[in-house]
């Protein structure tokens, strides 16, 4: 284990409200208060002048496609993309092939993670068998196998009764339930937000109401059962309002927003570019503003990417036929900084909190801080560096990003996991 002396960084650790220029020491895989004189001499010194040192970023919503869809992404490639984006902990969705609805599949994923991953990759399991929304998956066994939450991501449980039982049952194991809020009966054939743009483009619309109804349902069920329901990628302004009111009553719900929903609107679809097709869809400027307001006042707890790789040939189709989803890990930090810090004037420590301490707390993970004795998961980034993102040169196996070719501001320089450098100078070590 190497010893590191990171010098002259702006250290931001929201967990202890730290924001000061200083040095950080890493030894034995952990942050330490200081190093002995001899240790200092032999330590690897990193000049971090002009850089931010913050806890390794945490993303509770990624798709690594393993097992079964490894042509799109693998745990090896996905975790490298995470490291390059400054992420040290990511949470994988269970919509793999087969879906992760049993302990055996979780074990298989964990075996791959131990073998191939360069960052911490934590699995989730399904709520229902086969993610079909008909019968509960073996949630207790999933918990024992190591899942950090359950979710039928992408296939929102439609039956209110089954969702209620899932809440009651999962609560017994203290497992959060993550829900992609979508009433399927209202979104048949839908490929984009319903509104002026869908009317112009002649594409089938996915109305806000289809999200709002399930967000409201989940608030009600969380209140009824006491279970923690985490609402994934909120896209609708009315949903923000519903969450705000429920939280004011003390309901145990949390919510996430993606970088793309705070940066883009459905106006981007004017040329039917499938790199702007995702679910939930990009919505209007009013929705975008409401989500930012929700992040500002704590209604929305965290940023999560919904990193969803698809190959070029899968995305290179008629808009109706292309799959939903875009990459997120390698662009999340600069895009989020661009919107929240530079445009919206959020304080930088607050934005880092949205991507570190808060997601850790949301899932009860021992991560998201630079405190002494914490595992040395660290991200060093230059908040002012401009760079051009080339999705094809990225670490993900796919390149389906709306920011391909864009100039982004803010660049990750070095990522540490448990005191080891996993990414630096544009390379995975």
């Amino acid at each position, binding site marked *: 284990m190497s010893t590191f002396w990171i010098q002259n960084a702006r250290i931001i650790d929201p967990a202890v409200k730290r924001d000061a220029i200083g040095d950080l020491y890493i030894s034995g895989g952990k942050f330490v208060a200081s190093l002995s004189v001899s240790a200092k001499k032999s330590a690897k010194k990193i000049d971090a002048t002009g850089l931010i040192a913050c806890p390794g970023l945490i993303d509770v919503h990624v798709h690594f496609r393993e097992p079964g869809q490894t042509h799109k992404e693998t745990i090896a490639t996905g975790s490298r993309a995470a490291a390059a984006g400054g992420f040290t902990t990511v949470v994988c969705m269970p919509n793999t092939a087969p879906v992760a609805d049993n302990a055996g599949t979780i074990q298989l994923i964990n075996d791959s993670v131990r073998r191939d991953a360069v960052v911490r990759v934590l699995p989730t399991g399904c709520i229902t068998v086969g993610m079909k929304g008909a019968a509960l998956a073996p949630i207790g066994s999933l918990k024992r196998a190591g899942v950090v939450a359950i979710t039928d991501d992408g296939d929102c449980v439609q039956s209110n009764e089954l969702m209620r039982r899932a809440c009651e049952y999962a609560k017994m194991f203290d497992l959060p339930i993550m829900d992609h809020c979508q009433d399927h009966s209202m979104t048949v054939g839908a490929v984009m937000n319903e*509104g002026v743009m869908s*009317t112009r483009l*002649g*594409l089938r619309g996915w109305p806000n109401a289809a999200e709002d109804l399930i967000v409201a349902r989940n608030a009600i069920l969380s209140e009824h059962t006491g279970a923690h329901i985490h609402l994934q990628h909120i896209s609708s302004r009315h949903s923000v309002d519903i969450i705000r009111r429920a939280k004011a009553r003390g309901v145990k719900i949390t919510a996430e927003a993606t970088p793309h929903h705070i940066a883009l609107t459905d106006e981007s679809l004017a040329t*039917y570019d499938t790199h702007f097709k995702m679910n939930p869809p990009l919505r209007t400027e009013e929705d975008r503003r409401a989500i930012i307001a929700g992040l500002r006042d704590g209604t929305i707890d965290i940023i999560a990417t919904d990193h969803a790789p698809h190959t070029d040939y899968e995305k*290179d189709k008629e*808009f109706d036929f292309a799959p939903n989803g875009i990459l997120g890990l390698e662009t999340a930090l600069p895009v989020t900084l661009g919107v929240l810090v530079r445009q919206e004037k959020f304080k930088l420590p607050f934005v880092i909190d949205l991507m570190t301490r808060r997601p850790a707390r949301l899932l009860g993970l021992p991560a998201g801080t630079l405190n002494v004795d914490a595992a040395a998961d660290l991200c060093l980034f230059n908040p002012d560096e401009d760079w051009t993102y080339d999705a094809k040169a990225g670490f993900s196996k796919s390149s389906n990003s709306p920011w391909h070719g864009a100039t982004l501001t803010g660049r990750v320089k070095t990522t540490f996991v448990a005191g080891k450098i996993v990414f630096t100078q544009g390379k995975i070590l």
Partner: protein
Amino acid sequence: MPWTRRHLLTIEELSLAEIGQIHATATAFKKILGRSVKKVPALRGKTIVNLFLEPSTRTRMAFDMAAKRLSADVISLDGASSSTTKGETLRDTAENIRALGADMIILRHAAAGSPLYLTRFLDIPVINAGDGAHEHPTQGLLDTFTMLEHLGSLKGRKVVILGDILFSRVARSNIHALTKLGAAVTLVGPSTLVPHWFTDLGVKVSHDLRSALADAEVVMLLRIQHERQSSGHFPSLGEYTSMFGLNKTRASWLNPKAIIMHPGPINRGVEIDSELADGDRSVILEQVTNGIAVRMAVLYLCSGGQPESVMPTTV
């Protein structure tokens, strides 16, 4: 002003001047269609592929006829006989057609935006013959051509489009063409099929047939598809007809000189009374005839022809 456009994808992107150029060129070609030899050598040696991946009778035949009148070689391919049924992508199908030497592709496709998608990788002109619920530009051009023949100018004239607007590419193309030409457009139909979003396109939305039809000079009917019943857009064809079907009484609310239009296919007795469809105010078959002249104009211009040179190149 020379014509520079190689593709015809939407009316939304056309300028008023371009619409005028297409109409003027169509007028010249229409004269040719009245002759005993209805053919000009304008596109001799060119191969045009009609790639129709969705069923069509009128549009496909009209494009076919238009291309033949211009002396082009035409190959028509429909969904059932194309490799798309074997899982080939649209891109691969189109690139193969290009590799076979096609000079132009006319595409009819169920997915909105697919003609634009083809232009991203094809170096030959692409003509949109209807893309999902998006646009059907040649239909909008032939409809306005027909209206102009009857009304002279459309500036300030009241045009009503009645029926299933939500799922209609014909409606969208007509909305763009008519608003550019200065017409006062009102969309009418059940609120489920005529959402308020359309007002953003510069038209009125109404669910009251009587006030909408009052003094209108053009009424364009759109086909009502029975599938919309099962999706809950209206209770039954019978109720639709009783609320929004055009019959003699309702036609009497129109301006006395009003024309009745329909892009076809017609459901007699559903959106329009049979008598009216065949009556002297109906221009439904004129629309079909004009469709050839307008499509000749589009094929000619997008192949590099210029509006003013139509007559000299004809024999």
